[in-house]
């Protein structure tokens, strides 16, 4: 299978995401001005500071030409994974519910967190163990949604790094094919950096694509 990793001006986790995805399949970068998704099976919107995060995190990236293609891809059931800034972009673009606000303590947070996988019935978590140890690094990670959402990941008790509502760390859309999370699975794929738990997310996607599991 082939992953496409989007690169905006200001993205900084694109190469890590590409290397992580390349451990389970092919992975190539997609430029923000390019509408062509090059036939990829899954799209990753990686972390960073797209367009400087001016105005609000993710607010301007949602209007990039490539995002029109991503929205269309998602509507057709394509798998889309948004990590950190990618999660913010997917919320701003309306592909995911809710919004991300500045951390309740106003500080940048960078630490390993324990996550409870509360929904294994998604293409992104089907091969995940019950808990994951993955780092977070963000200033704008406090999830907020006025309506009930489909929660996939929660920070384990005592691990909420940002004041996120109901300890929410990751959510999927109603159709189940768009997933956003604040923690960085692409930074947890090699024992050298302390954890390989992030690989399970990429492996789940590969398994879902290879089995062509129909999206609900």
């Amino acid at each position, binding site marked *: 299978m082939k992953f496409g990793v989007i690169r905006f001006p200001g993205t900084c986790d694109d190469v890590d995401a590409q290397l992580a995805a390349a451990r389970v399949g092919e992975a190539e970068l997609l430029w923000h001005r390019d509408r062509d998704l090059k036939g990829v099976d899954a799209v990753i919107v990686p972390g960073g500071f797209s367009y400087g995060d001016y*105005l609000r995190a993710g607010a301007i990236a949602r209007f990039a030409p490539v995002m029109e293609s991503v929205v269309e891809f998602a509507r057709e059931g394509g798998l889309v994974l948004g990590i950190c800034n990618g999660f913010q972009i997917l919320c701003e673009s309306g592909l995911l519910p*809710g919004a991300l*606000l500045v*951390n309740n303590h106003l500080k940048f947070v960078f630490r390993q967190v324990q996550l409870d996988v509360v929904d294994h019935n998604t293409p992104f978590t089907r091969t995940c163990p019950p808990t994951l140890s993955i780092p977070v690094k963000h200033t704008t990670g406090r999830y907020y949604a*006025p309506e009930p959402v489909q929660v996939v990941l929660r920070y384990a008790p005592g691990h909420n790094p940002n004041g996120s509502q109901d300890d929410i760390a990751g959510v999927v859309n109603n159709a189940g094919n768009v997933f956003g999370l604040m923690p960085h699975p692409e930074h947890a794929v090699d024992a050298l950096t302390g954890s390989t738990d992030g690989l399970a997310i990429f492996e789940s996607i590969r398994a879902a694509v290879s089995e062509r599991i129909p999206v609900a």
Partner: protein
Amino acid sequence: MLIRPKAGILDPQGQAVQRALPALGFDGVANVHVGRLVELDVEDPEQLPAMCERLLANPLIEDYEIIEQA
């Protein structure tokens, strides 16, 4: 356009400012909120609400107020 955090949503930036002011001797301060100001020239002011809804504010978490000056 004045863009403010919606009422009821935790505004830690406003809280931090509210805590800082008494430290400088400014007492009796309450309900501090920190938002954004966007200034622009526009030929058709009727476009302003749509600009706010689609880009300048996130209506889920922010309220906006349009102030026009001729």
